[in-house]
């Protein structure tokens, strides 16, 4: 078991290394000089200063080692727009995004378990069919359109959610957060319950389930040990993948709901060509996704040793 986990960790670290290389090189592989592009046609001196600030002078290996040394010290550079350190910006905007994702995932998971198992258990063709159609429709709708419909209903028709702004204090912030969380939850329920549904259907066919019935295991124990636990592994893997995908989706969601999370920070940085911020946030997104999928695979493996990770 330890060997499996360690080898999975090794893979996570190697992917993590490439994530770092990619976020380092994204500013450098694109033709043209980012420093000159940002400043426009000004004198060479200013461009040189900016090149130095962006760690674009010297050979590529020198730049890379400067980058790595900075990373190890927790230094991701300084915003060109505000002069704040990128680490600081990430530290102040990431928590909101993480809360958003954790709450949506939690609600979606809690609601999907009864939904997915009940539909798999019912086995009625008409229910299964409409479940499939409805979830595939929801999954095809872009999150910003679901959000727009939410705004149209809850902000324009009934005034339950404010249009703009955000207050960071605890009870007040719920007023701003519940609608984006709802949008995320609806999307995640559709994915999670679908996968849970198909894995419960598969689990039902396994021989040990029949054994459980024959042995007359108590209802609660039967449901947990014989049905849910073996079905959860694929769901957990998907869940960790979906949380990564949600990170991407929050870019749009936070822009719509004007929430000061890391996604909106990225969009602002892109619009103002704030290269160090873009580079730093890209790295964080990559690292978080690698971390999430590592955790997801390990949890799945612990739940069901037959899982290949």
């Amino acid at each position, binding site marked *: 078991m330890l060997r499996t986990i360690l080898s999975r960790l090794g*893979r996570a670290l*190697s*992917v993590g*290394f*490439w*994530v770092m*290389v*990619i*976020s380092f090189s*994204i*500013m450098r592989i*694109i033709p043209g000089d*980012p420093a000159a*592009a940002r400043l426009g046609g000004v004198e060479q001196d200013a461009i040189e200063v900016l090149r130095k600030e962006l760690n674009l002078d010297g050979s590529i290996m020198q730049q890379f080692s400067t980058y790595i040394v900075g990373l190890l010290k927790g230094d991701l550079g300084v915003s060109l727009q505000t002069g704040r350190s990128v680490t600081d910006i990430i530290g102040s905007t990431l928590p909101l995004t993480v809360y958003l994702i954790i709450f949506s995932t939690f609600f979606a998971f809690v609601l999907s378990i009864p939904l997915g198992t009940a539909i798999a258990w019912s086995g009625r063709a008409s229910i299964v069919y409409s479940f*499939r159609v409805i979830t*595939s*429709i929801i*999954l*095809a*709708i*872009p999150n*910003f*359109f679901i959000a*727009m*419909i939410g*705004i*149209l209903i809850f*902000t*324009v028709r009934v005034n339950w959610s404010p*249009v703009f702004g955000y207050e960071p204090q605890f009870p007040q912030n719920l007023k701003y957060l519940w609608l984006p969380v709802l949008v995320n939850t609806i999307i995640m329920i559709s994915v999670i319950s679908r996968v849970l549904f198909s894995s419960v259907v598969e689990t039902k066919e396994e021989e040990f389930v029949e054994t459980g019935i024959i042995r007359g295991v108590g209802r609660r124990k039967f449901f947990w040990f014989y049905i849910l636990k073996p079905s959860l592994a694929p769901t957990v893997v998907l869940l960790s993948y979906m949380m*990564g*995908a949600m*990170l*991407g*989706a929050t*870019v*749009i969601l936070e*822009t*719509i709901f004007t929430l000061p999370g890391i996604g909106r920070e*990225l*969009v602002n*940085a*892109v*619009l103002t*060509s704030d*290269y160090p911020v*873009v*580079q730093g*946030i*890209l790295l964080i*997104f*990559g690292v978080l*996704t*690698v971390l999430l*999928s590592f955790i997801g695979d390990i949890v799945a493996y612990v739940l069901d040793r037959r899982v290949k990770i």
Partner: protein
Amino acid sequence: MRNRIIGFKEWLSLPGGFGILTGSVMLGVIILLGIIIPNFGPYKSDAFVGDPFLPPSRNHPFGLDQLGRDVMTRTFSSVGVDLGVAFLGVSIPLIIGTIIGILLGLAKNRHVANLVGSIIDGINAFPLLIIAVAMLTFLGTGLKNVVIILAISNWARYARISRTRAVVVSKQNYIEASKTLGYSRKRIILKHIAPNVSSETVAYALSDFILVIVVVSGLSFLGLATQPPMAEWGSMIADGRAFISISWWLVIFPGLALCWSAISLSFIVEGISRRDRGN
């Protein structure tokens, strides 16, 4: 007998037949409307034809936007833009990724193959929208750049699928048989491995099409893909957002067209996967 010719009714009664049919009809309808309305309709997509914010009426079934342009014409002239960009954004990575994947799967040098494999995993670690947004910062916004960026970042997903598949296929008996028969390596790759690998990547491409439509419209929703006055669903929704409390039609109609396209594709994908599973 996979290739037996069967009647339409029999085809429809097979698993997923109804989904494939519904999806194809829906997709066909919106593509047709996307050709007819902008070209033969009464209005131009960027012409000012009446009072701003005119609600839906008989002359303008989808109403007019904030500048007095016909929302219906704009909604349907976006079909070509969105589906076209998404088509390029799927087919270019599909071709590049499949080829790279096959080469990696068959590569004799394991070290190089593993190295490229972990770079691919590194690229795939980023959510597609995030890496696209980040690259647009440096490449500059615009539809052409969106296609380039999708090509640069999305091929890795195809390469991964293709590589795994190529490894499996190359171990099959019929490949051994072809080798024994003395066929050239080139012939084996082109005639035997490539078709078997690409069936898998093409299947993924169909479902990826939905994701890419959403990413393209998402990028232009963020103001990173299209320039005004070009009509595009994402940017129309973004423009309409400011006026959502007075004129819902600016957001709803382009959004419905976007959903219609994505849902039609998703019915096709669902139908095909049910047919493959056989239930």
